């Protein structure tokens, strides 16, 4: 293998699963002297072409059943493609699934040694690395207990330590990083980073888009066995999140008129959206039409006024479904008043997926006395804030109230925004921090 050849070269790869009514039927087809076929075909992968260069960290995104796991299994050599080729240059270590390749009745030590032998290491190399594995896994006496007694966290520690210490050229990680405590995850990430610096190749399959955008150099989106797009991780994550929320793929770029298709939307498109929002005079509820609207919102209140529309902008970008930690956003909301209000209170609350309210405030607490509103009027308001939050989905609740203890309309969890990772940290919020070396 020359150093210029890619780590993985997938060409015209397809994988057909043959479906049978019974194992017996499968056996008959496999052994039939004239190769008579009785199966129904399911194409898990169709004509995949993909080049993964050495030293790249490639993220693989796709819904369940999109063909991700099949692709990984082919790369790892567990499955063979039906047609096409998958050329792998170098030793592959895989964390395909918790417990893959581990015999639950053997101890951690025995499993690690066996795995290393399967990977083709010799006895001396294994002895040499075993100490490092023990230190990295750091599970103490459990290392010499049967694996079936392990917690999933311990399991992950040993599996990860074993995979990374067999000195692979290509490391494949499938959904595995979510297990284990934060401290160990940090250790894994650090190890992955040094691994990457050594010019090794990593494939990361996950549902956690933020780790793809944070770690990966490139990403690929699979859907129904087809390769939809390869490219910059943030772009792929956006296409994927659109696929998740709408269930549809965004229209593919029009290849017949590439010049126009490649053109970015005019920079003031967002401002046009904002202008249209502010100029809108309709009095019906339009919240559900917004791309960031969460249909599982919880709405309550005594009435008298209603939140009928909202708009989130990141600078001039409307509807930012995903934001980097620390991005500034504007939340615009329109309120229809059905009765007279002296000084309506307009508020919002941020809460995470577990329902923890991180922060909430309203116009009154911001020492702002709003102008009186009369029945039949609609008014627009704006909050501007920095989303200094940790990764994951965040919900925004919007509120209008007559007074502190008299809420008119509360739309809880109405707006859903996902925060992407920009740096490692722990906790829920990103606080302003400066660091100085003083001597």
């Amino acid at each position, binding site marked *: 293998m020359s150093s210029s050849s890619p780590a993985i070269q997938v060409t015209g790869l397809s994988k057909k699963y043959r479906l049978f009514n019974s194992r017996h039927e*499968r056996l008959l087809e*496999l052994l039939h002297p004239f190769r008579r076929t009785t199966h129904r075909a399911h194409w898990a992968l169709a004509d995949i072409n993909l080049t993964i260069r050495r030293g790249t960290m490639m993220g693989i995104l796709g819904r369940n059943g999109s063909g991700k796991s099949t692709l990984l299994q082919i790369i*790892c*050599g567990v499955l063979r493609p039906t047609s096409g080729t998958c050329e792998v240059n170098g030793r592959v270590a895989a964390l395909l699934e918790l417990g893959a390749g581990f015999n639950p009745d053997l101890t951690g030590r025995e499993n690690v040694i066996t795995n290393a032998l*399967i990977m083709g290491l*010799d*006895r001396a190399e294994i002895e040499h690395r075993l100490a490092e594995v023990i230190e990295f896994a750091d599970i103490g006496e459990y290392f010499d207990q049967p694996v079936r007694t392990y917690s999933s966290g311990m399991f992950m520690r040993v599996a990860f330590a074993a995979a990374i210490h067999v000195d692979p050229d290509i490391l494949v990680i499938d959904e595995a990083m979510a297990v284990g405590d934060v401290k160990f995850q940090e250790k894994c990430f650090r190890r992955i980073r040094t691994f990457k610096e050594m010019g090794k190749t990593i494939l990361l399959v996950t549902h956690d888009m933020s780790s793809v955008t944070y770690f990966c150099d490139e990403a690929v989106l699979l859907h129904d066995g087809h390769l939809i797009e390869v490219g910059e991780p943030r772009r792929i994550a956006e296409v994927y999140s659109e696929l998740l929320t709408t269930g549809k793929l965004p229209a593919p770029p029009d290849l017949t008129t590439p010049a126009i298709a490649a053109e970015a939307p005019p920079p003031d498109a967002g401002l046009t959206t904002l202008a249209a929002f502010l100029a809108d005079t309709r009095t019906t509820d339009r919240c559900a039409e917004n791309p960031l609207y969460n249909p599982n919102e919880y709405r309550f209140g005594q009435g008298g006024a209603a939140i009928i529309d909202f708009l989130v902008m990141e600078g001039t970008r409307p509807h930012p479904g995903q934001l980097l930690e620390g991005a500034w956003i504007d939340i615009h909301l329109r309120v229809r008043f059905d009765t007279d209000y002296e000084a309506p209170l307009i508020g919002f609350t941020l809460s995470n997926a577990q329902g923890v309210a991180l922060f909430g405030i309203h116009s009154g607490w911001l020492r702002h006395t709003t102008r009186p509103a009369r029945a039949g009027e609609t008014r627009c308001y704006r909050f501007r804030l920095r989303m200094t939050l940790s990764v994951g989905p965040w919900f925004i609740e919007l509120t209008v109230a007559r007074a502190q203890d008299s809420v008119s309309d509360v739309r809880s969890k109405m707006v859903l925004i996902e925060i992407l990772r920009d740096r490692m940290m722990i906790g829920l919020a990103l606080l302003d921090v400066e660091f100085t070396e003083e001597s």
Partner: protein
Amino acid sequence: MAPGSTTPRAAARLAWRLALLTLRDRYAATALGGLWAVLQPAGLIAVYWFVFSYGLKMAAPAEGGSYFLTLTVGLIVWFFFSEAVAGGTNAVLANRYLVKKIAFPLEILPCIPVLAALVVHAAMIALVLAVMAAEGRMPSTALFEVAYFALALACLATGLAFLLSGLAVFQGDMAQSIGILLQIWFWLTPIVWSPDLFPEHIRGWLALNPLYYIVTGYRHAFLDTPAVPLFGTAGAIFWIAAALMLAAGIAVFRRLKPDFADVL
């Protein structure tokens, strides 16, 4: 390096280690540990000996050692064979953790139970030699033929293991039916009975059973009973059977192999 491909040396090392782990695993929960590998067959030998020599008044054959030794030599051959074949049938099913998610040279799997059985068999051979010493019998130079016959039997068992381990993945009934087939085969083989019981013209037919060659070969090697010609009719029948079994076994295994991960 293509994933899952290993050098023959690395494959052999891996198979050996997995065989030892299989044995270790089997006796891990016991207090006596590896001693069971000897105690269990010893118990069976005692039962057979008691039933056949006291109950059924089976006499020692015309030549060779006591009935007890004749029986023991036959039984250790059988223990090796049946353990290898029964284990071989389960070889893929029992190791699904190596089939489903990692690149593993699957051809190793059927060899593991055969190797494990061979290790136990070595202990059995030592046991027989101990019994011989207790009876005051010294082995002749023919003893070296044991190595040949053990290897020959391992070949036959490996062929069967390849064939059955592949089929068992798709046919759940395989493991059950193999148990019955092995029982029948046991009684067709001159283990508890001696071929001398039959007149000459019937004895010729007994050689159609490939194990006939092995069992009489073992008896010759240990007890200096009349030799079966190493490369006579019985030998030819055995080697044809073993070669066919290996060829068919490996061919079927290779055909079925790509679907293991889909089914398990």
